[in-house]
């Protein structure tokens, strides 16, 4: 038993290189789909075969006339994979179940975010899978993960999910303004804030454009926001902003210059 657990752990840590295209030797139609579910859920089968079976079944979910007949068995098989499969296959199964808004997968993911020992996948991956069915019960967990994690990938993913959480507005705004945060986290925060409070984002963007010490990626993001969603009346009255855009369209690194030129054209600067 101990050996079995160790093997499982090792397998999860060292997932083999992706090979989603192994030849799947099964019949056509329902019989073949049932064979494929058998391969997908068979711990003794080669990973490449199991993954090929999952891919072929998922491909069949896009309109194969027989798929409906095995849909229930397929979902049950995916749950089995979640419980007993190498990391690479397990991730596929978790994402597909999450896309189906499967409560079994959701519980596993939430449990893992609340307790590291129960985690089946990395927290950033768990957050992504939960994004397929965000609801109030999950949003609290997401905020908690964001506040506790120091990993930028996790924090970025959490911000992505918080873009529909009205309770997270202040948290996102604070993150956006914090220059100690990574550019990726701040950039996602800009998108999230815009989704929740576009006026707040525009106000911040106009102010940030004047900050000559601001990170270029962040500057590009805020200028892009104004270019896409800016309020013409507000921009027309903001002399300092218009002057800054005028300067940037003449003298800025190429990408910023290009965006500034676009703004100049759009707002007649």
């Amino acid at each position, binding site marked *: 038993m101990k050996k079995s657990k160790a093997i499982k752990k090792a397998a999860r840590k060292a997932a083999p290189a992706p090979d989603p295209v192994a030849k799947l030797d099964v019949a056509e139609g329902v019989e073949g789909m049932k064979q494929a579910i058998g391969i997908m859920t068979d711990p003794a089968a080669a990973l490449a075969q199991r993954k090929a079976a999952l891919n072929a079944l998922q491909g*069949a*979910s896009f*309109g194969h006339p027989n798929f409906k007949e095995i849909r229930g068995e397929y979902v049950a098989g995916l749950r089995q994979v979640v419980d007993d499969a190498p990391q690479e296959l397990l991730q596929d199964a978790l994402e597909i179940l999450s896309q189906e808004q499967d409560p079994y997968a959701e519980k596993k993911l939430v449990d893992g975010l609340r307790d590291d020992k129960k985690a089946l996948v990395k927290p950033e*991956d768990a957050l992504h899978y939960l994004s397929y069915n965000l609801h109030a019960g999950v949003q609290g967990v997401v905020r908690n993960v964001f506040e506790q994690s120091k990993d930028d990938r996790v924090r970025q993913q959490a911000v992505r999910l918080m873009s529909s959480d009205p309770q997270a507005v202040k948290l996102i705004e604070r993150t956006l303004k914090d220059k100690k945060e990574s550019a990726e986290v701040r950039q996602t925060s800009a998108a999230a804030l815009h989704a929740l409070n576009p006026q707040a984002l525009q106000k911040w963007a106009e102010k940030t454009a004047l900050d000559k010490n601001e990170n270029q990626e962040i500057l590009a993001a805020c200028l*892009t926001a104004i270019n896409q969603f800016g309020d013409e009346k507000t921009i027309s009255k903001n002399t300092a902003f218009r002057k800054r855009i005028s300067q940037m369209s003449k003298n800025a690194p190429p990408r910023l210059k290009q965006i500034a030129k676009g703004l100049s054209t759009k707002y007649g600067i």
Partner: protein
Amino acid sequence: MNVDIQVNNSASLTARYLTWAWSPCRVRVTNPTGITGPTASVQLSQAALGGAGSIRFSATPTGAGAATLTVNVAAGGASTPFFVRGLTASNADPGVRILTRWRPTPAAALTQVGSVDLMVRIRKSAISLNTGERTRLINAFAQLNNQGMGRFADFRAAHVFESQDEAHGFPAFLPWHRAYILDLERELQIIEPSVALPYWRCDQAAAALFTPSYFGRGNNTSSVILDPGHPFLFWKTDNDVGIVRQPGFNINGVSPQVLSQALTLALGPSFAQFRTLESKFPNPDPHGMAHTSFAGPIRAIRTAAKDPLFFLLHCNVDRLWAVWQRQNGRYNIADGDTYQPAPLAGHRIGHNLGDTMWPWNGNVTFPRPSSPPPGGTMAPSPCVEKPGLQPQVQQCFDYQGTINIANNLGFSYDDVPL
């Protein structure tokens, strides 16, 4: 003398777009000064503009057409009909100018008496678009999405689990998706008229599509990596921001799980054989297995339309159908091999030739989805009349007006001639 030229028989600027199909046009005299008889002979020709492309003229909507056409116009102002079609594609708007010239006397040189600028707007491979075309496409998509509040949300909401039988697993899979991407393309054209929806050829290497400056580089379960300032930075669908997509294959090559174009076209000459491209379990296909060659929303029916790449994938499926149609001459719905098996009734509702399709028909009667259909009716085109506000299955076959120019749906593919 001066003349006025109307493209697609419309005075609207938004109607000045051509495909490979014959477009009805007309020319009429607006100032008869200098005309000595009841009519005058004018020559129609073309001049290249910055956006490239070329056209052909004809007095009737048949044949290959010619580089010039001479027509008689009435001094009294009555319109003279003629036809124009694209010969080579434009890459910007405008691409071609129609010149109208005449000789005030037999010995005089040709004098210009009118002109109109237009574009030969053709669906192309996504990786063949130039920088300007890519920028316009991305900007139009971003504006259509408008961070989750734009019209894109309706397209996303139409392709879900609850509506899957309207569009999948039954014969109208191909017609439904033809109407669906056409509706999206028309919405993009309202924002940016020069845009034609491009296709992703999944059986050819397309690394240039999956770059930070274009549709984004895969980033595992995080949002795809985009260049600073990329319009998709603010992409939003449902409850989350960003686009998540991770290729499960080396983007410098091709996923071996997708079926090549040659093998797809070899599925058979009847529609019943060809439509199995939807899913060929357990074998490769160019549709379902193209979806599942990625991790991310695109690999499930209910979430696929969150990703703008989805529309390029389906544009390719539609193109494959168009190539097959041309190869086998399958435009006439009276031909039993054009559709399957071609009765007006007998399939699930929504899949018979005479049925209107959901969501454009607004139908909520079982077995249609019971929730209010998203998006309303099909976006009208300023260039063509079909398929109308509530498309029927039977309107999706003669898409270039090969049998009847009135059937033209207003799109063409770069590698599928008329």
